[in-house]
């Protein structure tokens, strides 16, 4: 495992009266793709939102490049080089695809200000973005919106991508597009923390894996180990399902 880029130590998060994260310990190594698995309600999305500062850390520390970012405001966290793709994609539906991208490129005032090489690379990953450049994002299909959400996160180089369930509700062909795009992203040594429920999707991409249950990390290791051990899969993911029922 390479050096850690992001480290959560004993992180607790409360949302109103609910105690969601109950001491999360998680390490995201630099240049690798870490998958966060777990059943619904395990605390995966809350973990991403806590890292992003959208929920306040009640206790513990969130360390990014050695700096504790746990008490910073969301814009400050984003400005340190962390991009977030929420579960609902966060697309500005009344804005065009181009306008969505301009907003993500923080220093760009117009489309012409964006790095053309980077933009062409993004278009290579997601050709629909070029085709529908001037169209309102609200008219895109679910798959195209997901592509836009990811394209927005990578329109400028970022140190860490937090991506929440990118395969959710997508057709198999679009999921395959996503896998291809993420594999290309991995080749650029981008560090990614990916929340997923689709184990087949996660297995094809993950270097590291962490499994959550009841607001805690109950397993962490390499994806290769988990993928090659059906007993472990049954115990971790099956156990989670059983406890959920």
């Amino acid at each position, binding site marked *: 495992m390479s050096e850690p880029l992001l480290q959560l130590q004993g992180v607790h998060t409360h949302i109103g009266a609910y105690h969601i994260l109950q001491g999360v310990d998680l390490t995201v190594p630099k240049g690798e793709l870490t998958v966060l698995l777990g059943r619904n309600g395990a605390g995966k999305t809350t973990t991403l939102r806590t890292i992003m500062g959208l929920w306040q850390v009640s206790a513990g520390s969130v360390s990014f490049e050695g700096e504790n970012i746990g008490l910073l405001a969301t814009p400050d966290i984003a400005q340190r080089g962390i991009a977030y793709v929420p579960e609902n994609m966060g697309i500005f539906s009344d804005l065009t695809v181009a306008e969505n991208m301009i907003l993500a490129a923080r220093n760009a005032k117009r489309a012409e200000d964006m790095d053309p090489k980077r933009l062409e690379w993004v278009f290579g990953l997601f050709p629909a973005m070029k085709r529908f450049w001037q169209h309102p994002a609200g008219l895109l299909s679910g798959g195209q919106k997901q592509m836009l959400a990811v394209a927005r996160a990578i329109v400028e180089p970022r140190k860490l991508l937090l991506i929440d369930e990118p395969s959710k509700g997508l057709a198999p062909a679009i999921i395959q*597009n996503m896998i291809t795009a993420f594999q290309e992203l991995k080749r*650029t040594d981008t560090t990614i923390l990916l929340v997923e429920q689709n184990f087949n999707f996660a297995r094809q991409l993950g270097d590291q894996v962490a499994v959550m249950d009841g607001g805690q990390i109950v397993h962490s290791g390499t994806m290769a180990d988990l993928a090659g051990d059906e007993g472990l899969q049954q115990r971790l993911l099956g156990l989670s399902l059983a406890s959920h029922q």
Partner: protein
Amino acid sequence: MTAPATTAVEALPTVKPDRLPLMLLPVLALVALPLIGSTSTWVTLTFAGLAMGMIIFIIASGLTLVFGLMDVLNFGHGVFITLGAFMATSVLGLMTGWTTSTSLLLNLVAVLAAMLVAMSVAGGVGVVFERVIIRPVYGQPLKQILITMGGMIVGEELIKVVWGPEARPLLLPTAFQGSILMGDAAVEKYRLISVVLGLIVFAVMTWVLTHTKVGLLIRAGVQDREMVESLGYRIRRLFIGVFVVGSALAGLGGVMWGLYQQSVIPQLGSQVNVLLFIVIIIGGMGSVTGCFIGAMLVGLLANYTGFLAPKVALFSNILLMVIVLLWRPEGLYPVGKK
């Protein structure tokens, strides 16, 4: 960086601009024409309605953006209108020689000075209002309603302390008085000026919202402020900016409304407040285009019904709101809010 080929991209639905709400304005005007009977009266009423609508739009545009960006219901917006109008009475009072002069240039300078002072003072008070009244109650709608209404009452009383409780005249400068003839129709000069000024404000606002990064951020923030923050932008700073500009525009609207009525009372803001909320609800909370059309509809309908059936004019705006909301429950141009 090599890019993989991707497949399975579906076609995009055809873009159909929603022009139906825009059509309401000519439809309303054309329906009113045979009912009024006389073309010249219709022209006069239409210009009066458009002028009134433009002033309402200038005042309400900031209010709708303030709600859209932070879900803040500011019932104290009216205080900026009153403040602007009273500032104009003071500034124009000091420039009586300029306003009574027959020189159009001197008249214009006096009015522009009054507008600039009113906008600056209303904007400055807006900074304090946001810091003291609005900021402590972010995300608490019920408290927002109560405290902004309280702010409105306090502001109104302070205005009475400074300028007195009586109505103060706000006379039009000499060159702005009178009418011009369009065929048989007499159209007041000031109403024409109001229409032109309103169109300029709408054009500038539309340009800023569609051609600048700040405008883009405002439009995005109205839809999903959490995502704007996740992209690295400080939405609160943006909100303060919009609040101050909105307050300054309310101050400008107050000057225009005062000149339109030719007198100013301390209760001006609270009287106009209801109208403002009707306009932004009709238009779709957070939508500037919707606010513009809503304001024009309210202005035209108030003038047409005032002539045709004065009793109906008393509730015509409420009736309009009910009809629009039955047709489009989220207003004419709902904002795709998350």
